């Protein structure tokens, strides 16, 4: 969903009449409003810069992300600081590997993990939550008890099992992230659906003979989107951090590849040892991503609010 809206924003610049998203007036309106939101557009721009950096950054790298600078290794504090001369623009990590290349690679990974992970949780959680809340009754009870059980099973166990059953791969990482991420989303969406379905306009729609599915899709979903999108934008940083735990258990990304969550965790561990750049560079990128997510989420919320015309 988020990926799509990004695309929508890019397309917005070209101002074409027919868009990917069905060209319904509701969405067109939303796009217009989103484009007018300065903070959101600035965030899109910054996020674009970050993406651009991960694409063209490697061309300027002197070292790749796994090469160890044997000369610097062993005296990282004295010789590994950021410097243009040595080619280590962001300094080196604890082993003497170039942090510039590693941050680029980590940012790519974490952006993918954050966006795809959050999107998976968003789609699954929203569908599940709407269905449970709208249908109600026994179905609702059963569906929510199922969520209760899943919420209570330790994620560690599920992730370890996934690792064993399916083996290590990038794809499994998304499955694992999605598996642990959608539950809270489903609860939130269901809660919102419960209030919405008693509102007058839904009753009106029902009285007019609109089919149940259309009510869910046309009337409930758009009214939910505000909260849902805000929560999804909160999920992005959460996913980025969860990934580092999943990798700790051995599923997901393995050395020499890395992610922002892990670079930050490594940097945080050694922050008292005079190598603060190991924390600051990855943290800067992480914070930049969080901030842009915040404003994009906010902008989308405003833009998609069906009441706000």
């Amino acid at each position: 969903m988020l990926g799509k809206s990004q695309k929508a924003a890019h397309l917005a610049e070209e101002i074409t009449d027919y868009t990917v998203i069905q060209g319904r007036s509701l969405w067109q309106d939303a796009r217009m409003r989103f484009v007018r939101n300065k903070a959101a557009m600035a965030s899109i721009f910054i996020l674009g810069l970050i993406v651009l950096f991960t694409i063209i950054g490697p061309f300027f790298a002197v070292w790749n992300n796994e090469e160890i600078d044997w000369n610097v290794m062993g005296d990282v504090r004295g010789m590994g600081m950021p410097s243009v001369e040595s080619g280590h623009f962001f300094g080196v990590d604890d082993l003497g590997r170039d942090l510039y290349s590693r941050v680029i690679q980590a940012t790519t990974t974490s952006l993918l993990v954050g966006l795809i992970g959050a999107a998976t949780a968003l789609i699954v959680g929203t569908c599940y939550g709407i269905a449970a809340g709208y249908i109600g009754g026994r179905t609702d009870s059963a569906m929510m008890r199922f969520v209760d059980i899943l919420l209570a099973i330790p994620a560690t166990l599920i992730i370890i099992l996934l690792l064993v059953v399916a083996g290590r791969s990038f794809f499994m990482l998304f499955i694992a992230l999605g598996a642990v991420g959608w539950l809270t989303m489903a609860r939130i969406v269901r809660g919102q659906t419960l209030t919405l379905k008693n509102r007058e306009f839904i009753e009106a729609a029902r009285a007019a003979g609109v089919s149940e599915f259309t009510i869910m899709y046309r009337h409930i979903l758009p009214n939910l989107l505000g909260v849902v999108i805000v929560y999804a934008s909160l999920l992005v940083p959460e996913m980025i951090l969860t990934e580092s735990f999943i990798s700790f258990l051995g599923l997901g990304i393995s050395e020499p590849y890395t992610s922002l969550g892990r670079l930050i965790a490594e940097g945080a561990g050694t922050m008292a040892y005079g190598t603060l750049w190991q924390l600051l560079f990855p943290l800067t990128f992480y914070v930049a991503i969080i901030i842009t997510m915040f404003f994009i989420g906010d902008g989308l919320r405003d833009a998609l609010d069906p009441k706000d015309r």
Partner: protein
Amino acid sequence: MNKIIRTSLAGLLSSTIITGAAIAAGTHPETGEALADDQTFTYRILDEHSSVDPQVVEDVTGAEIVRDLFEGLMNQDEDGNLVPGAATGFTVNDSKDVYTFTLRDEAKWSNGDPVTAGDFVYAWKRAVNPELSSPYAWFMELMSIENAASIIAGEKPVDELGVKAIDDKTLEVRLSAPLPYFPQMTTHSTTFPAPQKVIEEFGDSWTKPENIVSNGAYVLTEHLPQERSVRERNEMYWDNDNTIIDKVVALVINDENVALTRYMAGELDRTEIPAGQYPRLNQEHPEEALSFPRLCNYYYTFNVSDSGPEAFKDPNVRQALSLAVDRAIITEKVKAGGEPQAFTFVPEATAGFAVPAVEMASMSQAERDELAKELLAEAGYGPDNPLSFEMVYNTDEAHKKIAVAVSQMWKQKLGVQVELANMEWKVFLEERGNQNFDLARGAWCGDYNEASTFLDLLQSDSGYNDGKYNNTRVDELLAEAKTSNDPAPLYTEVERIIAQETPVIPIYHYAGVYMMDSDVGNWPVNNVEQNWYSKNLYKLAE
């Protein structure tokens, strides 16, 4: 819970008042150094201990606590030599399979009961009793005590164990075969006495601070799981007058960096130095940063079983990979804690072990790299047919650094394609134990100070031979060494074979790398097993 703490605090207050009188002089009786008023030693432990029951404990941190609480027949001194403990000494018969220990008359339990030979008999039978199912029952088997193996297997009743109390102060032990290092093994916690009355009264909860009775220099007074455990002076201990430290506090701190911060803030007297930080700390606090050799090795093991890669069945390939590992970089730049480089499986620090002249050790790294390239080319691997495999290690910052560095050495020097895989500990053990790997990390710390504790791991049916290395000559030599009067040449021979066939890549031998407050006196840096006793330490006046 609160009540317990309060009562133990009351106990603590009364005991400090009494001991305060005992060492009023405030100087060390032998060295004459001025002692601090507060004789509390506080140290960091990585994780909660498994138990303080001597027959049940299975981890190092637990064993450290148990060594303070209980006293076995023999102790070790600061250099690791055998000195009398609860026994004043022992005699051995001519065929070297019956040992007779004489117990100290004045030795008492913390409740005032005398320590008798019966307490040891009870404890040793307890250790092999299938009902208790001690995870260290195999240690009694390793000690070759008569019938131990068949009792563990449930084939004989527990009473047939080869230990007997001749009288209250004489203990007789019969071995199934002579074992030269048997007396050394009586310093291990599994062999410590156990208070029968207390265990029978309280059952499994006898180790709780309010119930426990012990015969060592300290008693357990407080235990807050995952936070701290406190042991304090045992007034009944036979050598209480010469004990200086009043109180020992073990704090559980999982994160080594946080532990170091808390050490710097003065909350700890001892903590481990994280990998790579020793040079800096040694520069900034030369009198506090310590490094000394320990009895542990660190290596990578090839999977040479059927499930292993075809390439590793060729000794040349294994040799080439071992040669190309620049151990100096690992020990000086990655670990940087003063660890010795390893070219043999057994650490040099091991007692009675002469490091054999291994060819690789005398070459320069450039020569090694050259030879490695030749060997690999000979084996048929080169740029158009690169060797590729996966190396696995369990998730840990230091293991990761070593794996990354080693894989880069191979990649850059030999063009080998290595895939790194970290695994959660239990998954790692399971995969390694089932030979589901190409190359896996391994490490071992000696259970006793003798080369066989390491070399046994390469015996074909050893429980830790995960690479399934199988050499009948090695098995023969090791079997012979068990009963030999002079096993050293046999061990040298085994090492020579290992160096040739390279079933493992030894990387370095451990060093104890600590930050130790400079007012802690007499830390046994020469005890390579790091069997330390709080009763031998003291705190100097600042």
